[in-house]
């Protein structure tokens, strides 16, 4: 039995009605999607306060123990002669054990922590071995995108005419069959080929890396400054890429990146242009905020430039900017047809985007305002088919009815 039900008088009835309305209240779709664009860019993994606290505690105990040992150290003891420290050798026995190969159903993000490894099955019989502190995104087609760390990809020989593809930031790695490592460090991408051959593609240009060769992406001065011994044939290939999936090199012209001489051989000197420091890249949220401020200051064209630049990137921020660019065109620059064009591009680029419903609605509203009734009707009907659960369905149904009347349809 609910409180005030049945109500004793009109006041109680009004109060009950208010409570029922409040119970049914929900955020609108636009607000939810807008909020998601602000939440989607959170760090890949939530912080681990307990682990951090544990590390701090262990560190404190170690320091205290060291201090205590120094205090009780016998003063008359002969000083220990400094000994030559042996070169650090990676002890195979202490490496984290590789677990059984896991089949991860994409889309999913696989992340290994310190001292943790994972072996993931990918499509076409390939598998990826993630070393500690690596991040691999497995998409819906079971293709891998290396986002951070060092990943070894083993690819069986592909059938004639078929190639295995993996991604690392802006690069597509295409192979016929090989085994290679992927390292992600700083903002650089590098490839060491062990067997077979690998092609690294970006925007229609490719770098071919043969067995035993290495390649490092431009703007990775740190990686190139460390000479590496040539790996003998039969070893693995390594690809290195920037951590956030949005390397700063994106801001550099692609032609500059892929036309540079690449490190075909580890000992080959780095190209002068490639050792130049990468230009600073502002975070997407900062650019978006600047666009909003610019718009509020009454400079829609400048805001549009910023949004269009942002929209050329990736991720929710790019998607949000692509949508907002249409709104600037329609609401501030009074170019509704261009706005429809921009939103149509958005739909082509993000067919299942988080602002898809809002984009469909914006196109519909604009077409109604332009009195393009037939197109608007087609949009309304497409919206109803596509967004069956939309909370604005009723509104669009009413609009569709009115449009049918205007078009003289039953």
């Amino acid at each position, binding site marked *: *039995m609910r*409180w*005030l039900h049945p109500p004793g008088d009109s*006041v*109680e009835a*009004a*109060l009950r*009605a*208010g*409570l029922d*309305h*409040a*119970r049914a*209240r*929900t*955020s*609108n779709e636009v*607000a*939810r999607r*807008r*909020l*998601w664009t*602000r*939440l*989607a860019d*959170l*760090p*890949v*993994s*939530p*912080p*681990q*306060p*307990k*682990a951090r606290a544990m590390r701090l505690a262990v560190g404190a105990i170690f320091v205290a123990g060291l201090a205590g040992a120094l205090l009780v150290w016998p003063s008359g003891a002969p000083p220990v002669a400094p000994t030559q420290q042996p070169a650090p050798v990676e002890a195979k026995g202490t490496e984290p054990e590789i677990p059984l190969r896991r089949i991860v159903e994409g*889309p*999913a*993000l*696989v*992340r290994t922590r310190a001292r943790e490894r994972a072996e993931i099955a990918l499509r076409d019989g390939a598998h990826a071995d993630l070393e500690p502190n690596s*991040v691999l995104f497995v998409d819906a087609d079971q293709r891998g995108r290396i986002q951070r760390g060092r990943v070894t990809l083993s690819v069986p020989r592909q059938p004639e005419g078929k190639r295995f593809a993996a991604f690392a930031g802006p690069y597509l790695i295409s192979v016929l069959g090989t085994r290679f490592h992927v390292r992600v460090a700083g903002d650089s991408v590098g490839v060491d080929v062990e067997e077979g051959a690998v092609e690294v593609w970006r925007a229609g240009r490719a770098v071919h890396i043969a067995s035993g060769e290495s390649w490092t992406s431009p703007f990775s001065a740190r990686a190139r400054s460390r000479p590496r011994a040539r790996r003998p044939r039969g070893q693995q290939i390594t690809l290195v890429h920037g951590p956030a999936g949005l390397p700063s090199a994106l801001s550099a012209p692609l032609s500059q990146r892929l036309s540079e001489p690449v490190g075909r051989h580890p000992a080959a000197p780095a190209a002068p242009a490639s050792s130049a420091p990468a230009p600073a890249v502002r975070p997407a949220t900062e650019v978006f905020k600047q666009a909003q401020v610019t718009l509020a200051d009454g400079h829609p064209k400048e805001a549009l430039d910023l949004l269009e630049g942002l929209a050329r990137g990736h991720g929710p921020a790019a998607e949000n900017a692509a949508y907002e660019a249409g709104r600037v065109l329609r609401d501030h620059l009074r170019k509704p047809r261009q706005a429809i064009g921009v939103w149509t591009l958005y739909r082509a680029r993000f067919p299942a985007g988080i602002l898809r419903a809002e984009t469909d609605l914006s196109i519909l509203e604009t077409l109604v305002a332009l009195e393009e009734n037939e197109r608007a009707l087609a949009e309304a009907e497409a919206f109803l088919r596509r967004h069956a659960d939309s909370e604005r369905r009723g509104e669009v149904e009413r609009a569709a009815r009115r449009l049918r009347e205007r078009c003289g349809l039953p």
Partner: protein
Amino acid sequence: MNRRSASSSIAGSSGQPSDRELVGRCRLGDTVAWRALYDRYASAVYRFVAALGVPAQEREDAAQEIFVAVYRSLERFRGDAQLSTWVYRIAARHAARLGRSRRLRELLGALALREPAPPPPDPSERAADLHTLDRMIGRLGAKKRTVLVLFEIEGLDVDKIADIVGCPSNTVWSRLRHARADLLRMARRGTT
């Protein structure tokens, strides 16, 4: 009394990953799971902050703060309570903090002899009774308001509310009774 459970009101339908599974995947940095968790709780969080009297123009920011807090606290979620209980607890804490800072702003505005600007109306809420109710609930004390909203609007049972607000069930009943009486008194007086 047929109270709807929080899990049924804000969790997904069967076939969806469980809360525990989602949390586990979020801890591994799975952004898809994080999106699913957001989708599952976004409406509830928004409705809750709205019912607790957070003005329309601040609700989005409040919901963002709550989800960031949820994300940052995922490692601390032990699974002793339902995830919904835990999310409500974080949301209640944040809403209370927002309420305090808003009252402080209003006080400072009054001291500076400035009339605070009236909040713009929320275009999505055209029902006058909802505005009236929001204002009345906003006049309740924080503890009574939280209990009333969780029981009457969010539809949680008293044991779960006791877990969220951190007090015995009898105290929840007591606060609820007083909150109802206050609300009815305000409605009769027409003090909105």
